């Protein structure tokens, strides 16, 4: 399994940075949390896992 901090696990194939089961406002917060992880990865050196 390929791993790196610069590869952030998305939610699902059909909805990478979303979740249709959540209410829209909550879904946006969820999307925000995934993007924050991505930005954090960009602020760190790349690391293999």
């Amino acid at each position, binding site marked *: 399994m390929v791993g790196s901090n610069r590869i952030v696990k998305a939610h699902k194939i059909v909805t990478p*940075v979303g979740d249709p089961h959540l209410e829209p406002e909550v879904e946006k917060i969820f*999307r925000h949390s995934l*993007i924050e992880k991505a930005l954090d990865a960009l602020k760190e050196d790349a690391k293999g896992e």
Partner: protein
Amino acid sequence: MQKKSLRIVHYLNQFFGGVGGEDKAHIEPQVIEGAVGPGMAVQNVLGEQGTVVATVICGDNTFAEKIEETAGEVLELIRPFQPDAVIAGPAFAAGRYGIACGAVCKAVQEQFSIPTATGMNEENPGMDLFREYTYIVKTPKTGIGMVDAVSKMVSIVTRLADGQRVGKPSEEGYFSRGLMTNDLSAQTGAERAVAMLLDKLKGKPFESEISLPQYDRVEPAPKIQDMGSATVALITDGGLVPTGNPDKIESVGATKFGAYSIEGVDGLHPDDYEVYHIGYDPIFVHEDPNRLVPVDVLRDLEKEGAIGKLHNKFYTTAGAVCIVENIRRIGQAIADELKAEGVSCAILTST
């Protein structure tokens, strides 16, 4: 029984064709009877086996600017000579020439079903693009390898024209075409595998029967020091395109990407976009495209100052059953554009 004397047509660029240098790189395809320049070496190697009946010469820029069209024109110049085989170049390390040689060989192979061969250095971009469609003999970067390359090219096409098989890439000195052929062996697969393993354990050289895929090692970009002043771009391989797919990006085996403006857009609207990608059910992304390309969140972060700027375009292609060479080219093109436009980093959302 005397073998038929083979008719060979030779393709050359403006330089090897003796027309001129870069100043003549725009000349249209033209044909001259007989051998020209390196064609003499081809004729020497051919000897009694055949004759270089014609030489087609074309400018490297002419070809590079419209590959398909020029290949078609070259075919029409070759056609009246009814050759048994076509040889192109060798092009050595010259990129535009290599692409022209590869394109000519591919077109001849497909349209006339006659054997073709050319010669290139391994770094020539024409090599990876056309290796499957013709026989590309390995050459050094410069013309010192001319005679050796010509000998190999002629040897390959003359045998093929005679209905003989050509040996393995490593034996004959051409770039692997990615083909597997069936062969008989006195040893079973189990015996050959164990012999190979024993050689490997002893540190002896061994040759794998199947070549393993080569993966690039890519140096990761250094971390962003100040995200608050960084420009962030969004990229996706989920095939999100403006409604109607104006640039006709393929939903499978994509050969191109799109770059679409999100200037002044706070979030992607479902009416404006759709998914062209055979590999997943687009239902949730169609309801809300931000679930794939998170413009809404990035715009908020831009307004808050968490990032300096959201780049004014997002980049998209469909990452479904792509040919590695094509997707690598797409990635490089997107990267080049991001760098040219001062983008600091990118988030690629993948399905």
